[in-house]
């Protein structure tokens, strides 16, 4: 056991792992042109292995885990000296950075909040994943929602749950489609999914109680079966508070359509508390672990709509602390080494 631990701490292992990370970085960056940012990130960086023509190769998580362990072992097996204080501190900082990255990878959630002026919202919509929601709106005090995640929306899948009084068979699910009419019936025209998930508009064909139902992501008329409503929508994460948009303001450069700055004036309704805030570019709102950023907006005739990016991330503080430590370490090292390296020449 000890032999393996010492082996991982060897500089050679670090070298090879680092070199592979560099190759991975280049491959993943170039791949983004073809398969889009999100897909490339998931394939090369946010996973353990990826396959190249059937051959499994280590991906981001694996390599960074190896580097983390290697650095960790090295740190505790080498001598701590005044002379290498700089490098020691830098390495501790690097470990913190990697650890923070790990925390972010396992705990962060992010999405969009789209709010029209004068309206409020209390959920975040996921950028990529969809869900099929069945709503029971009978109770005047609250709605009961049963949600089937996107991974269950496959052809020939049967969707059933104790809370839903009927069974739904998935005939087909399309990530990107246009719904048209043919002979008074709705039909689905499938489109090639775009690499940018924001451009995809999904649709699903369900078989319920002997009938076909075509439901699109942005249907204006909700599909009702009995006293239940069925919606196809982006995965929602509900927040314990409401965000109300009072006013969205866009400032443009004089005589130019380019936006100089945009901001959203909001009120957070948390139970009885009303929390006023102004969310601006480069100035987000932080509340109870969630951070709200001004992302973009949608113009409208009567009112504007703000689009906020919302992130919850346990590992948020780590990069800040780690960076300070790394820089202190590098500075110490520089000041110790540079005089001898510059060399006095006559």
């Amino acid at each position, binding site marked *: 056991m000890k032999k393996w631990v010492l082996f991982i701490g060897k*500089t050679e292992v*670090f*070298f090879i792992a*680092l*070199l592979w*990370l*560099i190759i991975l*970085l*280049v491959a*993943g*960056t*170039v791949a*983004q*042109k073809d398969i*889009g*940012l999100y897909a*490339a*990130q998931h394939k090369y*960086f946010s996973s353990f292995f990826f396959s190249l023509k059937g051959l499994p190769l280590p991906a981001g998580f694996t390599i960074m885990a190896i580097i983390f362990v290697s650095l960790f072992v090295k740190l505790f097996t080498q001598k701590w000296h005044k002379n290498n204080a700089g490098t020691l501190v830098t390495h501790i900082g690097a470990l913190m950075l990697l650890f923070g*990255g790990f925390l*972010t990878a396992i705990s*962060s959630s*992010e999405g969009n909040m789209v709010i029209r002026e004068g309206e409020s919202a209390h959920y975040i919509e996921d950028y990529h994943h969809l869900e099929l929601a069945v709503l029971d709106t009978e109770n005047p005090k609250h709605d009961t929602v049963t949600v089937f995640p996107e991974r269950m929306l496959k052809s020939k899948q049967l969707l059933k749950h104790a809370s839903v009084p009927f069974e739904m068979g998935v005939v087909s699910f399309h990530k990107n489609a246009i719904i048209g009419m043919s002979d008074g019936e709705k039909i689905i025209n499938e489109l090639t999914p775009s690499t940018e998930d924001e451009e995809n508009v999904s649709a699903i064909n369900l078989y319920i109680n002997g009938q076909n139902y075509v439901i699109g992501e942005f249907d204006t008329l909700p599909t009702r079966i009995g006293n239940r409503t069925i919606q196809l929508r982006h995965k929602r994460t509900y927040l314990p508070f409401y965000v109300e948009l009072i006013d969205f303001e866009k400032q*443009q*450069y*004089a*005589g*130019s359509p*380019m*936006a*100089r*700055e*945009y901001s959203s004036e909001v009120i957070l309704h948390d139970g009885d508390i009303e929390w006023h805030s102004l969310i601006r*570019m*480069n*100035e*987000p709102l932080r509340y109870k672990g969630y*951070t709200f*950023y001004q*992302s973009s907006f949608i113009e409208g005739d009567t009112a504007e709509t703000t689009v906020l*990016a*919302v*992130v919850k*991330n346990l590992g*948020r503080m780590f*990069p*800040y602390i780690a*960076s300070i430590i*790394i*820089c202190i370490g*590098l*500075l110490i*090292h*520089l000041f110790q*080494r*540079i005089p001898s*390296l*510059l*060399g006095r*020449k006559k």
Partner: protein
Amino acid sequence: MNRLILILCLLFVALPALATPPQQGYTAFSTIPVLQDGRVKPIDTFARALLLTVNGKSSIYDEVNNQKLTATQWLAELIFNPANSYKRPVFNIPNPQVVQALELEWQQKHRYSFTEITKAIRNQFETIEKIRLQSEEKRSLEQQQLLDLYLKTLQYFQVSRSLSLLWPSITAHDKHLAKWLNVEIKKPYSYFQLMKNHQDISKRIERIRLKKPADMSDMEKDFVQVWFQMELVAKDSTSEDFAIIPDLWKKENWYAPWQLLPSGSGSPQTAEYMRMWQKMSEAYQTGDMAAWHQTAIQAQEFIYKIAPTNTNLLKLEVLYNTLQPFQASLALYVLAFVLLIFSIIFRPILLSRLSFISLSMGALVHLSGLIMRIIIMQRPPVATLYESIIFVGIIAVIFALIIETKRKDKSGLIIGSSLGAVLQFIGMRYALEGDTMGMLVAVLNTNFWLATHVVTITIGYGCCLVGGVLGHVYLIQKALKYKTNRLNNIAKSMLSVTLVALFFAVLGTILGGIWADQSWGRFWGWDPKENGAMLICLWLIWVVHGRITGFIKPFGFALSMVITNIAVALAWFGVNLLGVGLHSYGFTSGIAFNLALFCGIETLFILVISGYILYHKRRREA
């Protein structure tokens, strides 16, 4: 020695002050403010940007009168006497296929007049419309260029009609009409002067127009004539590019003459200002240049009193445009390089001292240009790709000067003159796109992060490039079989430069992550630009660790320095070619080719020089 440098520097700084010509009309005219693309700028910048767009150069040569015309002089002719300007061959069509498509004759200097081109465009109008309706990817290169030319002529035309409402072109012949309009008979007036009557004229014309010409009185016939002339001039009312009139209430808005009247934001002062412009028009059109110069100076002094903008910055900007500090520094860097080459071949110390002076002067001019930009734009000078090139240039030269001062072995001169010249040259190409002091998109509108993240990362790039050139020097000296202790000195320098580069690159990348966390909600998004920065950091870490542990010897280290150059080029320019991600900006066609060429040359250098060195090592050991 040092005193000589000091005197030369002082002289250089004093020169512009001495060289300021006596207040001439054109100088005053060039500093008059105009709003374009969200920024109040002097007419000089407006003129240069337009001339660059149309002509590819920021000044033209008048072959008829054998004189050079500055951009400002050209613009003055365009707006005050367009009929003449339309005949000047200013439009640059460098692609012979586009010239053929327009059925024009190919000329040596490939410059064509507005008159020639509009005639040609009229014939090809259907084709151009079809090209415009197609989506961008489907157009061929020549079709895109033809469409761009068409759009340029539209812009040129719009600007040329900016002052048409000030030209006296409408005359009343009937004495009753003249009385009613309160004007002198048989004297030409401008649309601007007759504007106050516009509503009454429109009301009366409705009644008169229905009559048959035979039934009209002389006054009514003249009325129709005047109204018709006014309508003809009013066709130019869409000309809105030349926004010279400030809004004295809503201080952010500026209007073009044609926009002022409908906007209703005029005031007695803006009316006075317009009258001065009318006087300028009249003087220019009648050829009374003395009067024009006088009125131009008056107009500039007047607007400087009432305009809600910092007028000192306008004058500074015109000075900056005239001095062209980055072109001047390019010349000095090239001179330093040439002197250096001669000093290596011919040995006298004087040549290398002169090279050092030339390099320092270049750095001073370069730096003064940057400082001027900071003052004019009121922000750190590193927000666009162009600015990053200029900034990396000065960083590289400063570091090179430090190295040369410490080591005195010409290595600093090599680094400074080569990097300085190359980077300024690349920068010049980007400067051709027009006004380089544009406004920034919302997310970049933060001086703090611009001053920290972007500055740090560009310093990091600069240091990497310095290390890259050092690597070249080491390899060439090794191939030429220089003594080992000289090589070791360079090796030590390479390591320190790399450590400094590593510090700035890592700090800069992390600051970028923090900015992203503050702005977009995530510290790291595997964005191409972020990956590029990480690539440089990881590569430097790998190389430094390799060197420190003895894994990589000085020879291998020097090779990795050259590879660092390639990494920097890819991270800096290459990622923009991928066109994805939040950082996608600064795309220029042709960049792909030049980038590939650079990487190709560096790779070739690595292969050839290492092959040579290894071969000779083999031979010696045999």
